């Protein structure tokens, strides 16, 4: 097993005929992801990716005709909230929104509708997820992974690749790697993912990669202290030397009013018995020291 995506994933790509959508769909297909449909309004009836994927006008059509159960969104920021809501309306259970630059206030009603429908949204502004050897949804390079039993959850993109590469280089494989996104308002939090990993029989250890801003790492640490005492864990927090009051690229990464500092997060994680690496390359050693036998 794995979390969020796996062999049972039947993916519809919203925005498959766009430049980004097409490029990354090709990579997903090459990785072995079961892309059953694409969706671009007005292009229904065509096919994408060298005739390998049928394109539909609506997500509902794609669901009816292909049994799609997961969606990946590569739609520009102005249309992305609508794309998420369309996926919810069509009954898609797991929605990945890769799009960056969605105004934060637009996401408030969207996450509420997603929650009320019982669906799951990952992102926006996230790199997606990979369950090595089974499926990848989003833009994470497939080559960095190795099959295994460590769950990885992160707020960033390339920093996740760095950490996953370090693990693969050290011979530590992954069950699922998830990037939850760097925006202030996101659908799925660290805590949500920890709960999914805790319930996944194939995930034996967990790596959490956080950054300055907000208090989601602290919240996750508090839960882990109670529920994941027996699970080997390691963490990394980016932004230990970031100045206060400056937004570090991600809309969510800012220390304000003395809150959201890396020091707060490191303290909370260590209090939960989770060691925090000084560099992503130290994560494999910390995982093994915590008892992981990968």
């Amino acid at each position, binding site marked *: 097993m794995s979390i969020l995506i796996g062999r049972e994933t039947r993916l519809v790509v919203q925005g498959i005929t766009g430049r980004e959508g097409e490029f990354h769909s090709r990579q997903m297909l090459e990785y072995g992801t079961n892309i059953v449909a694409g969706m671009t309004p007005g292009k229904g009836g065509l096919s994408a990716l060298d005739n390998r994927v049928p394109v539909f006008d609506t997500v509902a059509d794609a669901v009816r005709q292909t049994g799609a159960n997961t969606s990946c969104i590569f739609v520009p920021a102005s249309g992305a909230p609508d794309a998420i809501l369309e996926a919810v309306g069509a009954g898609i259970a797991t929605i990945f929104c890769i799009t960056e630059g969605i105004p934060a206030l637009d996401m408030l009603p969207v996450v509420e509708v997603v929650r009320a429908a019982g669906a799951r949204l990952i992102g926006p502004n996230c790199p997606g997820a990979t369950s090595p050897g089974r499926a990848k949804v989003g833009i994470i390079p497939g080559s960095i992974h190795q099959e295994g039993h460590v769950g990885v959850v992160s707020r960033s993109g390339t920093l996740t690749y760095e950490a996953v590469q370090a693990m693969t280089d050290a011979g530590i494989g992954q069950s699922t790697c998830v990037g939850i996104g760097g925006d202030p*308002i996101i659908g799925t939090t660290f805590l949500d993912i920890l709960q999914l990993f805790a319930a996944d029989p194939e995930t034996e250890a967990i790596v959490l990669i956080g950054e300055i801003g907000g208090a989601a790492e602290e919240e996750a640490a508090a839960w882990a202290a109670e529920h994941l005492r027996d699970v080997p864990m390691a963490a990394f927090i980016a932004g230990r030397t970031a100045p206060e009051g400056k937004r570090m690229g991600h809309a969510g990464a800012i220390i304000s009013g003395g809150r959201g500092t890396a020091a707060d997060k490191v303290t909370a994680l260590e209090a939960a018995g989770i060691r925090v690496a000084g560099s992503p390359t130290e994560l494999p050693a910390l995982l093994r020291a915590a008892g992981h036998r990968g």
Partner: protein
Amino acid sequence: MKIQEADAKSLLAAQGLPVPPWAVARNAVDARAAAERFLGAGAGRVVIKAQVLVGGRGKAGGVKLAGSPAEAEEVAGRILGMQIKGIPVRKVLVGPAAVIVKEFYLGAILDRASRRIVLMASAEGGVEIEEVAKATPEAIHRVAAHPLLGLLDWQARELAFAVGLAGPHLRDFVKIARGIVSTMRAYDADLVEVNPLAIIRESGPEGHVERLACLDAKVTLDDSALPRHPDLEKLRDLDEEDPADAEARHYDISFIHLDGSIGCMVNGAGLAMTTMDLVNRAGGAPANFLDIGGGAKADRVSAAMRLILADPKVRAILVNIFGGITRGDEVARGLIDARARQEREVPMVVRIVGTNAEEAARLLREAAFETAATLDEAAAKAVAAARQATGGAA
């Protein structure tokens, strides 16, 4: 994007909130003229406030009262010559000084944890809310606006009662609270703060009247939403902006100037922060945070290099690229091109992994670039190069 108090007040006033009149002056003579107007219209005194995008103006001496046009000119002249937290004061706000009966705090933020707009109110107005939050967290009352319906009247009333506002001010408070939320929505603000919201006393034809007024305003706008508010772009205060920031924005580069000597060029915000952290850990100090974003091509790499080299303190450059959407060979070509045109010889350490890394490695080898395999190694080499360039200290 942060905007000045005077601009924040315009946004609040446009949403129907009670904001006393004001004028903005860029020199002491204009401040005097504005003071003359307000004093002539019946104000006992005027208040003169430095317009800078940092907190703590009052403590720094940037907010003063004046009783006459001459005094206003003198006070404004002094404030206009000041620096507050390193920022020169280039303009002041002049307005009638209110007779304050009682001060409150009222603010709205985009709260990540609850994924709601949260309204906060306190009877401890006029002081920094962070300090109230630390000392007496129970003195701050909160309600979360409904994600689909917005702030409801009963929620606003609940806040009013919690801070001890009743009677004649209740209805006005509800209007102001709703107005703050509508200000957030109208302009895509992620913060709207009125501190103080005050009961002020005014003399009218029938004696004294007391009413609620927004005496200060702080608004920050969501950068992601600026493209759909082209009219708000003119509120960007170019006086307080580093010229490098405008160039960075033009190329879609996320850039923050820092104090160290090692220029950093990275793809991805989390990795860029990590690169800064590792430079520090290796004993150096980063000169900047710089994220070239996903899918960067040669022109963006050249622009990033110009931004880094424009800082005379830079003694070494560390390039760290983990290719995903970004292709390593494109970055390598951009670097080779940028180095051929750069005017200043600065040692550079390049690490490129991920998509098309082999081709990147070949290009860099042929062009005799110093390279590194891991991020830790790259940080150590960059710190050593900066030390050598400065003869010891990085």
